[in-house]
């Protein structure tokens, strides 16, 4: 089986999820071609073991994100039996557009992939798990952190394809910088606050701890809906992001079913809540019945002590 992996770019570089895409692909495929839109990270992609070849797709159109035009540039090269992308917003859009171009089915956000091919994905944001078999050729996107990265050193050849097409989308103005903080869906540790934090200003305590341990800060839907200062991009749960970090720390979050759906597959869950009957304790590995005002200073101190 020939597999085409669409590399995930990260501001001109290669996003680390790309080696996870290669890891999952090389386990079931015979050859893995990595396409690097915009030429981003092509040298790095060539050094991922399991990669047969890298095609760097270059052109001025990659300066502005236009799904239609990017997909048009990528599609002719994405001719494997299986097309694999990251389940990021752009990865999903491009994967779906290429699938529609080739009239092949697409399944998004997989957490399991076996020969056959058999795909596993959480549905209803994790309230259930679905297993499907998909006929080849098809396109899929994979969830970050759900697959082992390809480890070691490789040396694939790189070829370059130049594309010449105009984008139809133009940026009129930048409205807000991308959050420079780590995104909850990519972080290995997430610390989230709920309405129990009392005031959006109190999230500063979560940021301090996050900075200490390299975590991302998330929030419950209740917090996002209540406070304008807490953006929707931080929301963990069914109408926000689904996360599966190694460690999830929920502070002042009672644990509504929508929230649990978005974080219950985290490897370890710590909950800090003053209400001993809060549903969040039902999914926690370590539950601490305490107010955040009492618990967070100690948590910060202990984590500082460990990291020093």
């Amino acid at each position, binding site marked *: 089986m020939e597999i085409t992996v669409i590399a995930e770019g990260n501001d001109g570089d290669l996003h680390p999820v790309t080696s996870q895409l290669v890891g999952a692909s090389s386990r079931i495929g015979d050859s893995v071609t990595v396409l690097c839109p915009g030429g981003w990270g092509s040298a790095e992609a060539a050094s991922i073991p399991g990669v047969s070849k890298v095609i760097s797709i270059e052109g001025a159109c990659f300066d502005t994100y236009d799904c239609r035009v990017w997909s048009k540039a990528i599609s002719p090269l994405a001719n494997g039996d299986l097309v694999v992308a990251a389940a990021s917003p752009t990865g999903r*859009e491009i994967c779906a557009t290429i699938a529609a171009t080739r009239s092949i089915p697409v399944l998004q956000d997989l957490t399991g992939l076996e020969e056959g091919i058999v795909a596993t994905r959480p549905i209803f944001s994790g309230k259930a798990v679905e297993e499907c078999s998909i006929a080849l050729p098809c396109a899929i996107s994979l969830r970050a952190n759900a697959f082992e990265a390809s480890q070691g050193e490789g040396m694939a050849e790189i070829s370059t394809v130049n594309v010449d097409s105009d984008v139809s989308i133009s940026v009129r103005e930048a409205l807000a910088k*991308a959050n420079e903080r780590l995104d909850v869906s990519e972080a290995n540790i997430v610390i989230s606050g709920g309405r129990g934090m009392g005031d959006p200003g109190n999230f500063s305590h979560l940021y301090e701890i996050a900075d200490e341990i390299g975590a991302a800060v998330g929030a419950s839907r209740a917090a996002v809906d209540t406070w304008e200062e807490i953006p929707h991009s931080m929301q963990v749960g069914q*109408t926000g992001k689904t996360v599966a970090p190694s460690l999830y720390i929920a502070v002042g979050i009672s644990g509504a079913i929508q929230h649990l759906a978005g974080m219950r597959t985290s490897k370890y869950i710590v909950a800090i809540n003053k209400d001993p009957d809060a549903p969040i304790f039902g999914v926690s590995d370590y539950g601490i019945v305490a107010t955040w005002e009492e618990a967070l200073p100690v948590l910060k101190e*202990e984590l500082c002590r460990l990291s020093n």
Partner: protein
Amino acid sequence: MSANLDRGNCFRRGMTVAVLIKQVPDTTAKIGISGGFVDESAVSKWSISPYDEYALEAALQMKEAGRGDLVAITCGPSRASKALTEAAAVGADTLIHIEVDLENLDSVQTQSLLAAAVKRAGSEVVLCGKQAADTNGGSTGPGVARLLGSNFVGMVSEISSDGEGYLADRMGPNGGERVSVPSPCLFAFDKGTSELRRPNVRGIMMAKKKQIEVLSPSDLEVEIGDSQVKLRGHSSPPQKAPGQKFEGADSVAEVVAKLREEANVI
């Protein structure tokens, strides 16, 4: 990033705005598994998928600004007609239900049906949610745009008219930005900046009488063929063993030690 886009003078009169909506189990509903599959009959409440509601709200605002026709389109089994009635209760004018009783249409089948219905309605602008709250996939918007040959903008929170084209606020790979895009275009909505409207009693009464146009794949002249995706089964997420519970902030140090020694995650 709430933007005060001027919708007042914008949308051309008589234009048709299409909104694609999907009926999903309400996000508050519990999901039960019976005989290896999700038990749909046990779903307590079905609703319009949340991101589709933002698309619907934006479509309503476009309709009001341009006095055009708002066509709501859904593809699904017979229960899905209720979602169209809900859309009518807040102001959708024309309701199209592509009724397909097959379980599990694949993306090629779904998208070709929706694209055919949009073409039939003659809409140059199409709005939908960025993903539905059941599979959370996000393939429909970009896929339908591709089949229509339209432009596509995803992760949109607000749109307005810009001469012959549109301005959209979106969360792009480099952050929030306002982009211009020519017509025809399909917009996939993230959470919007506008408050969602709720239907009033009159709207609900009127919507009940509103006719739904039910179309089959052959009415749309679409040969859908067989699904290339076969559902093998559903399961409940792995249940966790009961965790350990501690009282008071004094226990934090102990938990941190366990995270390092037992869990090995920090």
